[in-house]
């Protein structure tokens, strides 16, 4: 497990232990990775973050079009693996959680412990102003810095 923000590690580790999730990714709404568990390659993290953020953005647009409040949770159910995507509101801003889980656990368990993780993150978050926004010009540099932190290289 790797995290850009150290205070995320405890709640995320608890979530992973309790939910038996195979892969977990916490990212900002624009796809910047905050923390990851289970990914072996930075390329996979980049792809998953981009796709997860894109799926959530598309879903929110659908909700907007039909005049519904935003979707908080999306689940893609597969025969062997399922994906759980959820909005996470923490003092630092709005994040997205992406969880991949298999048949060894259950959607209800993942959701229950994910909700608990959100509560723990809200408690653990430092009471400082949210981090500055990443400008497009800095995006690549920021991305590579994040990936170095997440993968230790």
């Amino acid at each position, binding site marked *: 497990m790797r995290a850009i923000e150290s205070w995320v590690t405890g709640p995320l580790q608890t979530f992973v232990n309790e939910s038996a999730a195979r892969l977990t990714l916490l990212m900002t709404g624009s796809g910047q990775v905050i923390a990851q568990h289970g990914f072996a390659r930075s390329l996979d993290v980049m792809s998953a973050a981009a796709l997860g953020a894109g799926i959530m953005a598309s879903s929110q647009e659908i909700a907007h079009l039909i005049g519904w409040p935003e979707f908080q949770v999306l689940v893609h159910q597969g025969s062997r693996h399922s994906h759980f995507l959820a909005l996470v509101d923490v003092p630092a801003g709005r994040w997205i959680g992406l969880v991949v889980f298999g048949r060894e656990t259950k959607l*209800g368990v993942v959701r229950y412990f994910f909700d608990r993780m959100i509560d723990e993150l809200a408690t653990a978050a430092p009471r400082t102003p949210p981090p500055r926004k990443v400008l497009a010009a800095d995006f690549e540099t920021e991305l590579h810095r994040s990936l170095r932190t997440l993968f230790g290289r």
Partner: protein
Amino acid sequence: MTDDLAAVFEPILQIRGVRGAMIVSAADGVVVAASLMEDVDGDAFAALTASLVGRLGSLTDLAGQGAPRCVQLHAEHGAVFLATGPADLLLVVLAGAGTPVGLARLQVIQAAGQLG
């Protein structure tokens, strides 16, 4: 559909001491129908009971006994009954102290057989 399913556990709610009942999707651990006391977190209860039955299934399978049909847990302040039914549904009943356990278990098993 949900109302039809909920009707299955209505008689159980009439038993003295029973604090609630719900039907849970065993595969997902999510609530299908529920009638619970307000102080019980139904989503959490459904998730953890389905997970428990899944793990107990591994145990009974290992012992060559097949899938569990009924689980009865006794705690300090009451009991929890879990019974598996058709269509991968699970009937969960929360009973307080003083509940006639034999009657509750019998009705839970009968009601679970009507699910699906």
